């Protein structure tokens, strides 16, 4: 029994000036309208499957080249150029024919990020079209969309949209008369943050525990079911149809050199107008915060911003003017990550915030690599005792000494992700940690971030 969303969606998808030439709307077309997701609406109002028809007339290599020209970088977190990633897939040789897979990573779980959900809710066909185009470019036989388990209603919607696409001849056997067969399977995850990591996702797709694999071999050589596989984020794949429609060179004019295109920023926390903001890359963070999103929601000054999902090191006030693109955010000591921007006002106790984030990583660590499994748990325990007034001054140096022993010493980036907030908050807001230890209480008197019950 399929149930499609009938409940009002309170999320904010637009802002003043959105949809103009300055702020092009490529990813969130029709977002907020509950009936926007069907094939009819997509074909009639949003130039649906025009890009696919164009791509199928091109050579697969030319499609990859077009995406390379556009310069789009992966929107999932690492910011790796998507076209380059596609070109790593091995080509068929007379001696060896490959079975290639394309996987769409819709395991959206990074705290602060909620863009993929909106794309699948309102533009599932744009994602499906993107997957088909990428599969054509890499000549894949089968595609998977790995959706996190909580999104059951979106899975039902995607299944329905896929059936619509099959009926219209965009999927299945002999697509649009090219003689090429391709189909997409939707795979439902089961609530593990780690499965957003690409090799853990592949393990989960194969029906195993979601533990990251040793790299190399990279997925392009040996991925899902031992075959060459490319994994892209929902937003990256959904950006492919606009790129093909407008042409790679035209797309590259949006944003900044090397950081091209638009990206859906997810604004949350203490901000007056939270929601999704599709913006060209390179706009300053304080402009987004004050001019577009209306500044702080509590009337208090914003003290800290996490610029790229919970894994990114936090910014304090002096970095608020950083342009929001991959390179500038990296140069400022953080990472653009998944585009989730979390605002925290003056009344937020950074010890509590840090403990809440580290508890998440300690809970979600898959337990495979000792530095991450033990390190995250120890950081949680030490922060817990600081928060509860039992901290010692040497705990701060102890915390600082744990992170270098986790970062870079694990198979996947979860360990590094836990170190980002820990290091940055300890460095930038050290007086708050010291105050907690000496006064056995928060330096600020405000939000209550930790529930008295639960705690896994």
């Amino acid at each position: 029994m399929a149930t499609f969303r009938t409940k009002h969606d309170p999320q904010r998808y637009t802002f003043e000036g959105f949809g103009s030439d300055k702020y092009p709307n490529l990813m969130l077309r029709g977002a907020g309208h509950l009936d926007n997701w069907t094939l009819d609406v997509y074909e009639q109002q949003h130039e649906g499957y025009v890009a696919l028809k164009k791509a199928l007339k091109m050579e697969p290599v030319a499609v990859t080249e077009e995406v390379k020209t556009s310069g789009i970088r992966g929107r999932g977190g690492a910011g790796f150029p998507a076209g380059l990633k596609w070109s790593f897939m091995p080509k068929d040789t007379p001696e060896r024919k490959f079975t290639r897979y394309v996987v769409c990573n819709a395991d959206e779980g990074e705290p602060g990020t909620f863009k993929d959900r909106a794309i699948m809710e309102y533009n599932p066909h744009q994602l499906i079209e993107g997957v088909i185009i990428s599969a054509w470019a890499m000549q894949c036989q089968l595609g998977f969309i790995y959706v996190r388990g909580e999104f059951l209603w979106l899975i039902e919607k995607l299944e329905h949209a896929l059936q619509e696409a099959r009926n219209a001849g965009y999927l299945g056997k002999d697509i649009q008369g090219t003689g090429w067969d391709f189909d997409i399977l939707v795979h439902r995850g089961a609530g593990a943050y780690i499965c957003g990591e690409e090799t853990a996702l592949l393990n989960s797709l194969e029906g195993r525990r979601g533990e990251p694999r040793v790299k190399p071999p990279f997925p392009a050589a040996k991925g899902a079911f031992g075959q060459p596989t490319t994994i892209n984020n929902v937003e990256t794949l959904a950006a492919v149809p606009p790129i093909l429609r407008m042409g790679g060179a035209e797309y590259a004019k949006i944003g900044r050199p090397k950081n091209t295109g638009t990206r859906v920023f997810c604004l949350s926390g203490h901000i007056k107008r939270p929601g999704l903001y599709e913006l060209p890359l390179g706009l300053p963070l304080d402009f987004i915060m004050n001019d577009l999103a209306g500044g702080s929601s509590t009337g208090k000054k914003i003290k800290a911003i996490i610029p790229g999902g919970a894994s990114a090191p936090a910014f304090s006030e002096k970095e608020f003017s950083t342009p929001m693109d991959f390179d500038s955010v990296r140069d400022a000591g953080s990472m653009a990550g998944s585009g989730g921007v979390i605002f925290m006002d003056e009344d937020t106790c950074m010890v509590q915030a840090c403990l809440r984030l580290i508890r998440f990583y300690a809970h979600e660590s898959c337990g495979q690599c000792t530095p991450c499994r033990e390190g995250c748990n120890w950081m949680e325990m030490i922060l817990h005792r600081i928060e509860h007034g039992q901290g010692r001054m040497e705990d701060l140096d102890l915390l600082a000494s744990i992170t270098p022993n986790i970062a870079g010493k694990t198979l996947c980036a979860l360990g590094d992700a836990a170190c980002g907030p820990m290091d940055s908050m300890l460095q930038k807001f050290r007086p708050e940690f010291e105050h907690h230890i000496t006064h056995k209480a928060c330096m600020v008197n405000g939000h209550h971030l930790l529930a008295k019950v639960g705690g896994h």
Partner: protein
Amino acid sequence: MNHPLPPETADHALATGERLPKSERVDFSPEAIAEIQAIAAKYPDKLAATLPALHIAQREFGFVSLDAMKAVARALSIPEGHVFGVASFYTMYQKKPVGKFHLQVCTNICCALNGGAEFLEKVCEKTGCTPGGGPSPDGLWSVEEAECLASCGSAPCMQVNADVYDEYLDDAKLKGILESCERGEYRAWAE
């Protein structure tokens, strides 16, 4: 990670190597077996159907007990140990019974900044449950503290069973949600 062991259905804890008598085995309905096998056929390898099969087991039996895991292993002809490993890894497979309405409240940073932690306390107070502590005496509610549900812009957020999220929650909305659950406007667990 904390993985609670699923309860045994036998009246005593099974000793190493001891197996349930065949008559006490839990098994899928023929339709569910057909569904699992149809899913397995879509993948290049039948092992890949482990996760979907466990979702079906949860739907059929209400929660993933050890017996349900064994049934999955039999349905797919894969090792029981593999199924146990997978089921214990993923938090969405409930290894203990849950209430008719399983309330998953996000308390991660974005929700907490907007009152998610207090909201969880309220939910526990109203339903008389503790997070992860099993169903309430009337079997209607159970509460779980969830990690980020990807609804940060409309925090705090809660999911009732597998339904569409409830967002921008406050006391009034909680009251409304609990009442509409009682009226049966939400899909019951494992329906």
